[in-house]
């Protein structure tokens, strides 16, 4: 019984889910409106941008790299999407070119990190500045407001009474999950992150995997930009700024380790959802909105530190168990040897 509980907590996705349900019930007990289905759908809808980006980020984090440029990639993508739509371009063309923007920037990041051996944090931090500046050059610092109505209406299409953006998020998580766990190439991401040199020696295409990870992260940010324009209906020149840190925080909250090789996209998605839940719950508890970051920051540290302590404890415990069983074996051998 006890070991089952340990196993359950060890699976990070489950523990974050339990924590989230507990939090939901806690807020619900203060204000029953929070556990309404409508509210939940609203919160889920609000978390989709973060969720999509956290899933993309997971690929990069799994290979033990980091991508802090996603905030500005999302901003540039939203701007490109907005201007193309406003100029009356075909929807397919818009989606294709926006995704290309994300893929190209991700490709450059990936080349820098894998072939030029620039530390990922530096490469993407530089790219964060470059892309932010490019966006402002592109928009000339102006807001894009005349988005055609048909595009904004897509966000309100409901399939099985669930909004369209939520479907995009769910489908992307599922595809990413299946790709990472069920295909051979997907497992490479874990192998590269867990032991890069080992993966190299085994003949895995390490650099290709890294470039692909950054491209997927860029594409996810581009998709987030598409959803942003759909949901919000205008693009300010600050769009996406600061998102990168929320995305990484969400992935870490969901159990994706920055050291690489550990975590899942489901966890990252749950982390993103939990992050949004925390932010949107404050209104229901009648706490002023300016408490948002303080509480999310505190919870993030608490969960990450708690998890690290717990993992240490588990390690110690399993070592102790091993030692005990070894000693028992010795004793058995000795008792057998005596007669």
């Amino acid at each position, binding site marked *: 019984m006890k070991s089952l509980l340990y196993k359950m907590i060890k699976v990070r996705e489950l523990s974050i889910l339990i924590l989230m349900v507990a939090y939901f019930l806690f807020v619900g007990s203060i204000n029953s409106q929070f556990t309404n289905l409508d509210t939940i759908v609203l919160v889920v809808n609000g978390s989709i941008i973060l969720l999509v980006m956290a899933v993309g980020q997971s690929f990069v984090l799994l290979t033990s790299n980091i991508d802090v440029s996603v905030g500005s990639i999302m901003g540039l993508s939203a701007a490109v999407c907005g201007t193309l739509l406003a100029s009356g371009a075909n929807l397919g063309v818009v989606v294709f070119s926006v995704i290309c923007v994300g893929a190209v920037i991700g490709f450059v990041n990936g080349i820098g990190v894998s072939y030029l051996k620039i530390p990922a944090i530096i490469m993407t931090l*530089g790219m964060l500045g470059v892309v932010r500046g490019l966006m402002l050059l592109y928009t000339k610092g102006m807001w894009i407001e005349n988005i055609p109505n048909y595009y904004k209406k897509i966000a309100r299409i409901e399939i099985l009474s669930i909004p369209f953006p939520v479907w995009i998020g769910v489908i992307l998580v599922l595809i990413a999950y299946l790709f990472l766990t069920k295909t051979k190439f997907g497992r490479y991401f874990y192998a590269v992150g867990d032991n890069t040199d080992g993966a190299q020696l085994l003949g895995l295409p390490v650099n290709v995997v890294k470039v692909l990870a950054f491209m997927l992260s860029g594409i996810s940010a581009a998709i987030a930009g598409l959803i942003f324009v759909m949901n919000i209906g205008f693009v300010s020149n600050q769009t996406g700024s600061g998102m990168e840190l929320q995305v990484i925080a969400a992935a870490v909250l969901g159990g994706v380790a920055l050291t690489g090789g550990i975590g899942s996209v489901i966890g990252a998605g749950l982390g993103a959802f939990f992050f949004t839940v925390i932010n949107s719950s404050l209104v229901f508890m009648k706490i002023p909105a300016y408490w948002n970051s303080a509480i999310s920051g505190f919870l993030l540290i608490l969960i990450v530190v708690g998890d690290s302590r717990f993992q240490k404890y588990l390690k110690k415990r399993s070592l102790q168990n091993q030692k005990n069983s070894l000693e028992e074996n010795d004793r058995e051998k000795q008792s057998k040897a005596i007669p």
Partner: protein
Amino acid sequence: MKSNLKRFLKWELFLFIFLVGELIFFGLLTPSFLNVQNLLFSINDFAYIGLAAIPMTFVIITGGIDVSVGSIMGLSSITVGVLWAGGLNIWVALIIALIVCALAGLLNGLIVAYTDVQPLVVTLGTMFLFAGIALVISGGSSATGYEGISGFPNSFVQIANGITLGLPNSIWLILFFLLIFGVLLHLTKYGRNVYLVGINMKAAKYSGIATKWIVMSTYMLAGLGGGISGIILTSYFSSARSDLGAQAILPVITAVVLGGTSILGGRGTVLGTVIASIVVGMMNYGLQLSGMTSEQTTIIVGGMLIVAVVMRRFNINYVKKWFVANGSTTTKGS
């Protein structure tokens, strides 16, 4: 011969030459750029970057990183503002704000040193936490969270805007930081230990260095640096806001890395960071004079960060090797 070349090819010297070239380039582009008075006072615009980047150098040399320093700037600014608005003497408020920031840094350091959570994750969390606390302080004291507190006494405003012996105070402050932190890093036992921790944490631990204390103290210094930087910003704008410095983290880390500090730890100098801060600042100033907006200059600054790392990795090493190889053959020949 060899050591001379090595000295010549030092990164700091290269940066300095680059800085001179930059000044000449912008001078040719817009002649008004080379007005010495303007040039000196433009340092006011980016002194805060250098002040935060110098202590950050210590953190990065130990192999860590502190992304919460921007939030600490806001925290320090709003603490001074709220305490002063609450009727406290401005200088007492200033000292309390610095203590708060050092404690914030201590919290970072404690978590980094005593758990095995990566520094980036820890400071990411505290970045939200400190920014949040700053917002709570400002929101709790007045109805609108984003509205600044202004009307500070003139003596406080003069910290960043005043002139001493013909030079702006911010230049004196940077020189003071360069001296204090330069001596601390390069001439004391503490500084040597900081390098050792960055090069090999385990070896440092087994040779009896209090590694946890070293790591913790560097984060405290970074927090203090962020605090001072926040106060300079508050004084410069003569207004206290909780989101001052929110965008500072990119230029601060750029200055440290461009200055030659390895993000992997173990390498870096205070002088390099200072020169790099000026290079970045002057680049911003020059580009803005020639008609770019401050946001657009981030393209150049971001690009510079990437190019600098690539150059340090390939070019300089390559050139060094080439020189050394040629130097040794010529000495052999003679």
